[in-house]
């Protein structure tokens, strides 16, 4: 780690911060929460406390901006520079700036927090099923008022929990209208506007009037980005228009054609050739939490570390389960010392919307009209880096994720997604492991329960302890056929041998996975057999072990098995 020259640091421990504005990419409570968690990273290991101010000057002033945003270090559009922050001190010192030409998420794609409805502000669950169709974005299907909504569980038909998605028809942020929704059409400089606009602004932010006439009332707010809106280009905030025409060809989905950088883009009108309106398609985005935690490290007095896994390493890397590196801890404790005294009360999660507002009010529930929305494209699977389970059923590889499955035939033809609940109605959303035994019975494991499907009939759920697995086993993560009536079951770093006929674990087990299967990860979360090889998966990778127990290939599940 490094500290700024002269070990610049705050001379007090009760640090204040203030969020000056918000990004349209995420609902403001999610942004507040990301910042609060980012500060907690540092307060967990030091005596520092962080208090949020809503007015006046705070030690750390946080803002989003684009390009020239009021300091001598302009941002550079999408990618490359993500944010910067100043070391502790007066004025701009200690402040943190985030480039709003980036797509800010929690690092793993679109995050949509719902409003109203009956889900208490829960996040949208993508994909979700409504009326037998699968949706990967918010939809207005089933409604007559054009308000986009989503389900907050995998299956709306089953769970009936839903909320409305951020849109200018629900609220605005910033501005001077206290979050009032847009009024369309509105008049600005004598001209009528039917949608949010960037006219009149040099920063590219989309806004609208919250009364019929901006010229008279001057009431306005900024429009939240919809989850399907394009990023950058010259149509930021507009949705893709499918199909669109480009160079005389029709496109039904985002494409990289025409670009050297390989980024996916789309037109926002029916013809790029005619209108030249375009933007980048939403991707995983950058984790506001991770970037903020890094920037706050600067704001507290840390410079860049040369340790790649440290938070203060200058380059961005997404990690799902973050923990502060020893180097960061030593750095910050060099400046402020270790945490002393009892643990503070952990910050409360952001409150859900005011209960008064979360009542269904007069918003009708999604109705069950016929929809024309197509099932999402099969290659939607490519956005996943990890699956709940992968197994072979009837000779086809099955990839399970969040209540859906895809099939890859032996001829490498991919189909799906299919709802698990349609084919195996007794199963829960998340399947940890599955296998098909020699008599074509299907075994599914989820947590400490398992089900056995024989055609349409089902047995279960039963507790895995019935099979002789110890009560300490929290889930079965992989299964591998061993001979006619035996199956290896994997969990953690151990595996057991199940006698399928006797429905009991054999004596002499568990054994350590790495003692028997050398060269594969000892904590694989998916194990399955396919075409004579055994695959051990961890994160986005697989280790392939041949029949001679040699690891002959390590590769990507996504690219090698799914042909993404």
């Amino acid at each position, binding site marked *: 780690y490094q500290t700024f020259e002269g070990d610049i640091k705050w001379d007090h421990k009760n640090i204040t911060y203030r969020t000056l504005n918000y990004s349209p990419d995420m609902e403001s409570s999610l942004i507040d929460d990301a910042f609060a968690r980012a500060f907690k990273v540092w307060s967990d290991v030091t005596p520092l406390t962080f208090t949020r101010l809503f007015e006046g000057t705070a030690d750390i002033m946080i803002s989003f901006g684009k390009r020239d945003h009021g300091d001598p270090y302009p941002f550079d559009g999408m990618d490359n520079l993500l944010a910067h922050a100043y070391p502790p001190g007066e004025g701009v010192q200690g402040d943190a700036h985030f480039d709003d030409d980036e797509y800010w998420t929690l690092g793993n794609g679109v995050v949509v927090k719902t409003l109203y409805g009956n889900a208490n502000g829960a996040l949208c669950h993508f994909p979700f099923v409504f009326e037998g169709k699968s949706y990967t974005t918010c939809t207005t299907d089933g409604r007559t008022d054009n308000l986009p909504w989503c389900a907050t569980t995998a299956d709306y038909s089953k769970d009936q929990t839903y909320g409305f998605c951020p849109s200018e028809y629900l609220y605005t942020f910033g501005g001077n209208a206290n979050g009032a929704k847009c009024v369309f059409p509105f008049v600005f400089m004598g001209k009528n506007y039917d949608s949010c606009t960037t006219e009149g602004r040099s920063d590219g932010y989309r806004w609208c009037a919250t009364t019929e006439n901006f010229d008279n009332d001057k009431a306005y707010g900024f429009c939240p980005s919809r989850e399907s809106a394009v990023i950058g280009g*010259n149509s930021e905030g507009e949705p893709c228009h499918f199909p669109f025409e480009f160079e005389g060809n029709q496109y039904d989905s985002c494409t990289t054609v025409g670009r050297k950088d390989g980024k996916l883009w789309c037109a926002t009108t029916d013809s790029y050739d005619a209108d030249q309106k375009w933007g980048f398609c939403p991707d995983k985005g950058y984790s506001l939490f991770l970037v903020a935690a890094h920037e706050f490290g600067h704001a507290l007095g840390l410079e*860049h570390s040369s340790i790649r896994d440290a938070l203060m390493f200058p380059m*961005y890397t997404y990690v799902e389960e973050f923990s502060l590196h020893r180097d960061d801890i030593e750095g910050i404790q060099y400046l402020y010392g270790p945490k002393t005294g009892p643990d503070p009360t952990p910050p409360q999660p952001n409150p859900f919307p005011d209960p008064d507002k979360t009542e269904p009010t007069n918003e009708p529930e999604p109705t069950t009209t016929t929809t024309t929305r197509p099932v999402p494209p099969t290659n939607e699977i490519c956005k996943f880096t990890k699956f709940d389970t992968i197994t072979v059923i009837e000779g086809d590889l099955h990839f399970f994720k969040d209540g859906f499955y895809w099939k890859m035939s032996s001829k490498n033809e991919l189909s799906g997604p299919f709802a698990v609940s349609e084919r195996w109605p007794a199963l829960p959303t998340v399947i940890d492991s599955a296998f098909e035994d020699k008599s074509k019975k299907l075994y599914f494991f989820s947590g400490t329960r398992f089900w056995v499907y024989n055609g349409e009939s089902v047995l279960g759920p039963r507790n895995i302890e019935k099979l002789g697995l110890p009560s300490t086993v929290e889930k079965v993560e992989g299964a591998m056929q061993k001979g006619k009536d035996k199956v290896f079951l994997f969990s953690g770093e151990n595996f057991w041998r199940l006698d399928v006929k006797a429905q009991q674990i054999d004596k002499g087990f568990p054994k350590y996975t790495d003692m028997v299967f050398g060269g594969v990860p000892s904590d694989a979360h998916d194990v399955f057999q396919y075409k004579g090889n055994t695959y051990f998966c961890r994160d986005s990778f697989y280790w392939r072990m041949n029949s001679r127990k040699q690891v002959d290939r390590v590769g990507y599940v996504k690219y090698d098995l799914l042909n993404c």
Partner: protein
Amino acid sequence: WSHPLKSVFVTFPGDVTKDMSETELADSYLKKFGYIETVHRSGFQSLLSKTNALKRMQRQMGLEETGELDKATVDTMKQPRCGVPDVAN
């Protein structure tokens, strides 16, 4: 025999093309992040200091310290990152 498809690249309106050469990219990166001084007294010193700057950058980023603008170094320079300089100014 099939002919390879002809790729047509388009300059999109409003798109910020970062079509700088690798040398330009390196110069800009090394200056922006504090590895190289902006004022050089002679071309020879400039060359020396750029090699050293590259080595310093490679060390910071955990790359092999070749002092040359190799592919790994260029790729690293294109990655998303924090705007705070790596070398104190």
